[in-house]
């Protein structure tokens, strides 16, 4: 920031901060403020702020977590009330702008990795509660994480202004009077704080969500966030509301699906703490959005496979010395059957789930199957959910062979897993061409503009020379 404005604005901010501090000190004596902070805490949990704004092993909300995107890593900021490294100087208005319009206190734009397009739905009252929580309910941490540095042209934050004009709907949520209170609450949570569409809605070339395909499925790095519309085959159409609630709260719907990867984190950090009413509201809403059908799904993704084994090929047969020559059945026996049982039927209590009638094996998009074999599933709390990852035990060929066995017995036979796919997923995903694409596009546009200018200049010269 340069010039007089550069001097005034920090001063102005300081005065505001002082005013706010005085105001909040005054408010601290007000009993209802404690209530507001508590409500803000619940809302922050629902919004899962901690998932992005906390680095592994780091202090809560102190930032530093790099979010991988096709255009580079975006580093989450410190949103503790630290005055030197966080948002301690933010007014409520500045907080609201960051949260709901994607604009920082210094006026610069946030990248939509911060899901402000979803948080734009948050009501004023809820925003105020969140502000109260972040100012008074969170411990300040005075360490500033590394700044985000994206490649040209994505480092030009002002370009987000144009993007926002195209894609940001900045009106907070207004209830639909024709719908029930539960539906409205569910719509508010799903579209707003829980920001489900950030992962579950496919995006266009400019990386904006496609509103006509709400929750039809998207990709989050190496993980696929599946279709959660009420389509009977591709989505959750044949799930009961109780099953949806169970999945969101516990991270699994018995006999259908288990949350893994980023969804497991979302349940672990956020969704499991929602009230029963809120969980029910989300389920109610999800059952009403337009169903999106993928023609590749000829039956429900959780309806494939059956209990089966190839034990006859295993018993009495020595393992090959070369691990890459192990058959799918041998790999399953050695690494999977101990928990999932010899016929894929899972444990007595279903706590170690069966592998058939399971979305983990039934989808035609097989990325999640490979990812869960590589990474396992582990919650941070004491729920006991813990599938080990096999990235250090199985190589790419073994995982491809094993996945083929799992699909053949327990999944959709049309689905495929290739060794190259495993290799790429293990490495963090296929490299994105978006940066190159945009640069080429810009170069072409510049060339076109240049060509137009040159041609116009020549034409003007010819006219003027013609008139001489």
């Amino acid at each position, binding site marked *: 920031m340069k010039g007089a404005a550069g001097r005034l604005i920090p001063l102005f901010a300081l005065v505001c901060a002082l005013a706010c501090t005085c105001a909040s000190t005054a408010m601290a004596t007000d009993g209802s403020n404690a209530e507001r902070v508590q409500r803000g805490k619940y809302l922050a949990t629902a919004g899962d702020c901690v998932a992005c704004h906390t680095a592994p092993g780091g202090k809560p909300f102190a930032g530093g977590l790099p979010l991988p995107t096709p255009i580079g890593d975006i580093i989450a900021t410190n949103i503790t009330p630290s005055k030197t490294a966080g948002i301690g100087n933010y007014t409520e208005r500045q907080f609201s702008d960051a949260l709901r319009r994607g604009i920082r206190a210094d006026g610069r734009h946030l990248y939509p990795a911060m899901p402000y397009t979803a948080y734009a739905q948050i009501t004023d009252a809820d925003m105020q509660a969140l502000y109260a929580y972040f100012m008074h309910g969170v411990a300040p941490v005075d360490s500033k994480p590394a700044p985000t540095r994206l490649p040209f042209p994505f480092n030009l934050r002002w370009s987000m202004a144009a993007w926002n004009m195209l894609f940001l709907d900045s009106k907070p949520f207004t209830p639909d009077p024709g719908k029930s209170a539960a539906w409205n609450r569910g719509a508010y949570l799903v579209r707003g704080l829980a920001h489900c569409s950030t992962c579950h809605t496919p995006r266009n070339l400019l990386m904006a969500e496609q509103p006509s395909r709400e929750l039809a499925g998207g990709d989050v790095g190496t993980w696929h966030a599946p279709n959660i519309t009420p389509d009977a085959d591709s989505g959750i159409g044949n799930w009961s509301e109780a099953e949806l609630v169970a999945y969101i709260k516990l991270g699994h719907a018995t006999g259908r699906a288990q949350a893994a990867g980023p969804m497991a984190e979302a349940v672990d950090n956020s969704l499991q703490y929602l009230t029963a009413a809120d969980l029910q509201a989300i389920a109610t809403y999800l059952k009403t959005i337009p169903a999106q059908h993928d023609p590749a799904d000829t039956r429900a993704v959780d309806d494939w496979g059956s209990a089966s084994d190839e034990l006859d090929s*295993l018993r009495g*047969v020595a*393992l090959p010395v070369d*691990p890459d020559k192990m058959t799918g059945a041998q790999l399953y*026996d*050695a690494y999977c059957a*101990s928990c999932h049982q010899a016929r894929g039927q899972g444990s007595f209590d279903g706590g170690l789930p069966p592998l058939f009638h399971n979305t983990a094996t039934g989808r035609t998009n097989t990325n999640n199957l490979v990812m869960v074999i590589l990474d396992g599933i582990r919650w941070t709390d004491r729920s*006991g959910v*813990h*599938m080990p990852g096999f990235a250090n035990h199985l190589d790419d060929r073994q995982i491809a062979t094993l996945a083929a066995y799992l699909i053949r017995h327990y999944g959709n036979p049309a689905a495929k897993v290739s060794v190259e796919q495993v290799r790429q997923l293990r490495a963090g995903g296929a490299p994105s061409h978006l940066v190159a694409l945009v640069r080429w596009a810009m170069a072409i546009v510049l060339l076109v503009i240049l060509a137009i200018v040159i041609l116009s200049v020549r034409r003007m010269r010819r006219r003027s020379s013609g008139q001489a």
Partner: protein
Amino acid sequence: MSGQLSADIVVIGSGIVGSLAARRLALRGASVLILEAGPRLDRGRVVAAFRNSPFKGSWMAPYPPSPWAPHPIYVPRDNGYLKQAGPYPYPAEYIRAVGGTTWHWAAQAWRLVPNDVRIKSLYGVGVDWPLSYEELDPWYQEAEELIGVAGADDTGSPRKQPFPMEPVAEPWSMRRFRERLAPAYPVVANTVARNSRSYGGRPACVGNNSCQPICPVNAQYTGETAVAAAEASGVRLVPNAVVYRIEHDAKGRIAAVHYFDPDKGSHRVTGKTFILAANGIESPKLLLLSASDKYPNGLANSSGMVGRNLMDHPSTSLTFYADEELWLGRGPQSPSSINTLRDGAFRSRHAPYRLDFTNISQVLNVTNDLIKEGVYGAEFEKQLRWRAARQVNVKNVLEVLPDPDNRITLSSEKDAMGIPKPEAHYSIGEYTRRGADVSRADFARIAELMGGTGLRYSADGQFANNQHITGTMSMGNAPSSSVVDAFGRTHDHENLFICSTGVMPTAATMNSTLTAIALALRTAGHILPQQTTTQTDLADDRREARLS
């Protein structure tokens, strides 16, 4: 191929004890090299090998010996590696592979009770240790937090800080024992290196009931995890390296070790400090093998005690049918025991013991019995279900006193690499036999309280081996009667240390692994005392283990 390998610290043996000592030293900045005689193993392949084994009752079946690093196996027949000179057999089982024998243990991770280290002063038997329980206490705590120990309070071993984890969930069968034996016998949850929640990046137990020979899900801590932790701290490990000689210089300092690769190519490895951690049989064997002109009786053996005072925890047992369905086999193999008989004035007269209840599925035993009895037809399944539901077993875990005539020596027979095989000379003394006799009354009472029928005592004079190889390189203050000092340093060689259950001068009644780990961490701490802020990296270290 011999490129000259060298490190500040050379560790022989990659079992749980050697690996955790190596790790601690690497974290303090030393360059550390582990030489392991056997190969790397893969957990999934061991599981598959067990399922394909025709000898499910033999826990060594999924661990076939390597030709260059044989270990003893007895099923289907004795492979003749560990020679038995008698009068009583010492059929030890151990694994020469990366990670060592704790690939297949029941993860019992007990501390001693304070009196265990003073039985000479207190009871006039055995010897006193050259250190106190209080000195061991912080090392026990560090070991427990490193490997993740789940335990119940009040089992006779005082502690200053809580266990890292709650006791493992009690199986129904054990609950019934606890309820029905009270108040005569308090049954408590075993102190185990088994996860009762996610710990150290490994899942909680899910009841595979195959702890021995293999935990398929890595819920119990093993040498494999210790090796991984060591390598993550910068320790370098060379597998398939059979050390056959320890070389000393003219002053008696250890200069190098020599090892064979599987093709019998010889390699020399130099270092500044050497740690011998190759279990209580292979370590004394190596010391004896390294005899030279200057040390004709072997290294570290001016006392003549290397290999002597061989001890274990022998067991006798009672099998019977309880009068209710208990169905052993649900949950981990060794969940509960009675700990009130480990200490007391009686120790001047007879051996103390622990009483251990097994939760190993009885289906295999019962099926073998029925086949032997010739029960054919529809009756087979009926009997199988009835017996498997009710058959239970209680065994004692008896203390053995150190006796110099019980020892490991070098056999005249050689293995495939031309290295002399170890030979066991062993007998069970009267002190222990008297303890076994006394315990019969406990067995009978326990059976009575459980409405027992079909009582089958183990044969008189027959003791089962429990693989707790102790005493062969005993620690003590006097070089004339011990091999190492209180810090595990050999009296004879300033830069040679021993980390092993073999340094324990008495056996007590508890499985020896945790004590050996605690001693090894103390030894590592002595080799490289912390120079910087003492508690910080240690606390970070243990916090990391707890959090992941």
